């Protein structure tokens, strides 16, 4: 028996509903432990920030739990923590997410707080000021980590004018300029029931939970939304490089270029390619096998194009952290492996192993309720369908050696790439 067929034996039922105001509700009963995970996703994020207000979306999300019309920041924290629960608000380029985890007996409180944060935040001026200062301090602190600095620089070069060129939390100068009114504006524009998906997974009965959700969120009023538009990013046609000197032990090297969207039909062939080139189990993929296992150049090295695929195209990234004297060897090593997979077909054995890995390990993505709650949101946002759990296996099994060659040639480039190196360049060879 294939492991994945084992997985399907216990595939879960998704109960999908749409409230009168357009809010989508996705529910999965999972009584294995007495807890409930909730995930409310607002389908707007840092990708919609105007350049001059970069950081607006993330700032708005971080202030959701700092005060509502009926509760102070402390009252929210005290209420949820007193029952041992947790509620968090955070954001990314694509979404702002309020998530809560509670014991099943506290599901009512969880829903109440969740709706309060989504519908009635007040963004108190005092907290806007605090959060700005804190974000500025965190940006300074993050610059201590060469890998972060390298990642930021890499995105700037790869995305150019596209919104994903910037850090999601913005730049110091744009964060400084954000005002309380910007956060209200963002909330007013995008926090609408017809722009929200709520997933709840855990120990409850759908028939009992639905009326509670209706009570908590049903009276929220829908409005039409106009989303900003921006041009698609363009893949580079030459080399771009950036070297940043920083006193450190290791060089952090990012090498790659623009990637693909999650909805790209070649996504699954690219997942198999990722597994062969730079991912998979242990150090079986070509890049870690060659650069770590054989040459001893690094503790961390990997490559992937599917990992960052989203509504916007992600990035193809090959990464290595290595001592400065290895710079040339490491960079050439990455480029050689990228070139090899675009020029030579992978072996039948490599293909089979990668497919077995992906289909066999699929079950691990659905072990815990928070994982399932996140999956439901992805399934909805990227149009995967709730029978994805079954379809996925077929998508992977279908991939051929020719597919890998075709997608490697189409989506990877060993000539026209961006190279960013951050670290002790003085010792680099």
């Amino acid at each position, binding site marked *: 028996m294939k492991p994945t067929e084992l997985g399907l034996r216990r595939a879960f039922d998704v109960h999908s509903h749409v409230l009168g105001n357009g809010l989508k509700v996705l529910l999965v009963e999972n009584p294995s432990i007495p807890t409930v995970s909730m995930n409310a996703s607002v389908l707007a994020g840092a990708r919609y920030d105007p350049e001059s207000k970069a950081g607006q979306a993330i700032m708005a999300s971080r202030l959701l739990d700092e005060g509502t019309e009926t509760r102070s920041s402390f009252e929210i924290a005290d209420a949820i923590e007193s029952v041992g629960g947790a509620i968090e608000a955070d954001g990314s380029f694509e979404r702002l997410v309020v998530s809560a985890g509670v014991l099943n007996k506290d599901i009512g409180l969880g829903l109440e707080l969740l709706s309060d944060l989504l519908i009635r935040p007040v963004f108190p001026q005092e907290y806007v000021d605090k959060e700005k200062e804190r974000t500025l301090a965190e940006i300074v602190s993050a610059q201590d980590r060469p890998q972060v600095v390298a990642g930021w620089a890499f995105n700037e070069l790869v995305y150019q004018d596209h919104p994903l060129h910037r850090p999601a939390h913005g730049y110091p100068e744009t964060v400084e300029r954000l005002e309380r009114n910007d956060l209200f504006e963002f909330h007013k524009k995008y926090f609408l029931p017809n722009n929200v998906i709520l997933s709840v997974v855990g120990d409850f009965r759908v028939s009992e939970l639905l009326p509670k959700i209706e009570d908590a969120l049903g009276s929220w009023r829908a409005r039409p939304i106009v989303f900003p538009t921006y041009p698609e990013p363009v893949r580079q046609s030459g080399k*771009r490089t950036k070297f940043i000197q*920083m006193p*450190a032990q290791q060089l952090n090297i990012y090498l790659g270029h623009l990637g693909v969207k999650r909805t790209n039909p070649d996504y699954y062939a690219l997942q198999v390619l990722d597994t062969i080139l730079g991912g998979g189990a242990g150090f079986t993929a070509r890049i870690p096998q060659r650069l770590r296992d054989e040459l*001893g150049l*690094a503790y961390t090295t990997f490559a992937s194009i599917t990992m960052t695929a989203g509504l916007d195209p992600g990035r193809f990234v090959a990464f290595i952290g290595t001592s400065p004297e290895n710079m040339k060897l490491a960079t050439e090593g990455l480029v050689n492996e990228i070139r090899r997979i675009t020029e030579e077909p992978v072996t039948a054995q490599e293909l089979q192993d990668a497919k077995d890995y992906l289909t066999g390990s699929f079950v691990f993505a659905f072990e815990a309720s928070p994982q399932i709650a996140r999956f439901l949101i992805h399934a909805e946002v990227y149009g995967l369908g709730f029978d994805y759990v079954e379809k996925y296996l077929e998508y992977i099994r279908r991939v051929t050696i020719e597919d890998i060659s075709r997608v490697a040639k189409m989506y990877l480039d060993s000539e026209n790439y961006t190279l960013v190196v951050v670290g002790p360049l003085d010792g680099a060879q």
Partner: protein
Amino acid sequence: MSSLEIPSAFAMEDVGRTVLDNGLVVLTKEVHTSPIVTSMIWYRVGSRNEELGQTGKSHFLEHMLFKGTERFKKGEIDLITLKNGGGNNAFTSHDFTAYYFNFASDRWDVALEIESDRMVNCAFDPEEFEAEKKVVIEELKTGLDSPWGLLLQEQEASAFKVHPYRNPIVGWLQDVERATVEEQQAYYRRYYHPNNATLVLAGDFETNQILTKVARAFGLIPAGTPPPSMLLKEPPQRGERRLIVRWRSKVPRLAIAYHAPQIAHVDSYALQVLGVVLSEGKASRLYQRLVEREQSVTFVSAEYGEAKDPTLFHIRAEARGDHSVEEIETSIYHELGRIARGEVNQHELDRAKHQMEAHFILSRERTLDQAILLGQIETLYGIDYIDSYLQRINAVTTADVAAACSRYLNEDSRTVALLLSDGSEQVEENESEAD
């Protein structure tokens, strides 16, 4: 407060404990919610067992166990994991070394074959050893490029003068550089025995059936000479120790460590509760004071570190803006003083206990998490600890928290480590584009 109840799914009567004739402890926990089996093996050896000049051996050994045996050649362990759609990894601490495999439940037995084989047959090919040494050194350097990694390493080296908790788990660079394959092999022979290990299986299986498989895989391995006991004890600290680490960062960081008793010590429960009262969640003491009111830090954490031998209670904070570490330190000591004088209210205490209860449940949903809990507790103390854990936490009173704070978190037993700027200006950028 409402009483804490352990959900039946987590009661320890569900955990089987069997000891094979050769001394191998086998813990089994059936979990039938997903078709997954986690298998872990825990060795009672970590950096606490390493001698001066030989630091980093336990961790290096962990790397070597993936480099093959006579039966499973180099790369084959990872390849088997790949082909079977599984996951594997390992970690080393001061007190233990642990390895795990996650597989679907119809093919997990291969994990038993690998673990039993590499318990005694690790290959130690000299070339592989030298190649892997480079990887370990890169890992060590990655740690030194993290401000907290560096600061905590220096702090432990100062808080402990005698006990090997003073040494980094990954080892000191010069020790790793001069490590030899012969020494490594001797260390392996000394500590990798069935009677120095615990096998933990958690997941979708029938206990009776798998115990037969376990006996087949491990039963014939002879018991080894019990490894030497680690006899070093840390003498009492007789006054505050302070140290400064100069680094490239502009952001000052503060780490305060207090000597604290080992896991399951009668006072350890109150110290765990104290850590939660101080810094778990936005309603906690230090968050409210330092992040909310004084706005002097970007984050603050307080935590009792569970360990086999007397250990440390850590407080860490990252300064923000123009706030000085002196100002932050003063506020922390002021808050600790209030708690030591008994200014903890019942509501705060109850909230902390509920957080601990929920964490105990919420964070054990995956079989791997359950296996880690069981293996770690059995290795550090014995699984009975889990049985009484929530009752012990529930029994902690406000007076206990005050007494523990007063007794352990005092000036004379603390080591204060500051990460401060070395004045260097980073960042010279050089950009080019050729289309």
